[in-house]
């Protein structure tokens, strides 16, 4: 039962983190190239535009949920399991979500890269 709770917390963390990244990516594409916007309208206008964006705030909410799920998972399981499992799975789930929801062109190059990074992150915690 404890194992089920632990993996539920990890799953919630992975989903919330990936959803946060996908929503954030969508929001930033909609807002536009921040470098160009800053050159045209100034830094204050760009910051105001970003923090008043509803999608951006939703992404922050997801990331906050992910953070507290991670804390919960860490309180239930070993850091040596929780940290690599959540970080590696987040890379893969984010890639899948980016392909499905953002219609990103996730070609073989990006899948291979995501897999290498995923395994690399897992090894870093050894």
């Amino acid at each position, binding site marked *: 039962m404890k194992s089920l709770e632990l993996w539920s917390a990890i799953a919630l963390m992975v989903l919330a983190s990936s959803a946060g990244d996908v929503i954030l990516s969508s929001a930033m594409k909609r807002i536009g190239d921040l470098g160009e916007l800053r050159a045209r309208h100034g830094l204050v206008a760009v910051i105001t535009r970003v923090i008043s964006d509803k999608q951006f705030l939703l992404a922050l909410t997801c990331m906050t949920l992910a953070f507290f799920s991670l804390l919960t998972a860490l309180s239930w399981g070993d850091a040596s399991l929780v940290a690599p499992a959540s970080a590696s799975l987040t890379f893969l789930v*984010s890639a899948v979500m*980016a392909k499905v929801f953002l219609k990103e062109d996730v070609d073989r190059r990006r899948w291979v890269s995501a897999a290498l990074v995923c395994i690399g992150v897992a*090894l870093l915690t050894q």
Partner: protein
Amino acid sequence: MTLRKYLVLLAVMLFGGAGDVLLKRGMKDFGPVDLHNLPHLVSALANPWILIGIICLTGFFASYLTALSWADLTYVLPATAMGYVVIAVLSKYFLQEHISEWRWAGILLISCGVGWVTRGPALTKRESSKAIIPEALISENQEQHEIA
């Protein structure tokens, strides 16, 4: 990809990694956190390492948002993972931590993954993309340039 965009990706990697290591350095001075006395944590903000760490992490978030404004998520994510490599290298030389062979293997794999993805296109081709800023925020005196 212009030089400016590569510099933004470099900022994502360096600020993320350096921020975490600086927080770790500061928390070493601060000592273990007592869960029964969480308000005490606020005093950690007086530590210069932690303050610089927070500034770095703010820089990380700003450069991460900037990168996401012109590159795909699946392009930017591996770059953020490069921050783990920065953490490992800084931990070895700045915090004098031991890095095992497994970790060096992990660093190698992440580096290969990042090198591999950054050689490809940064953004999925779309029909059109437009920058939007409410007119109220635009000063009348500001010069208007065409979006590249």
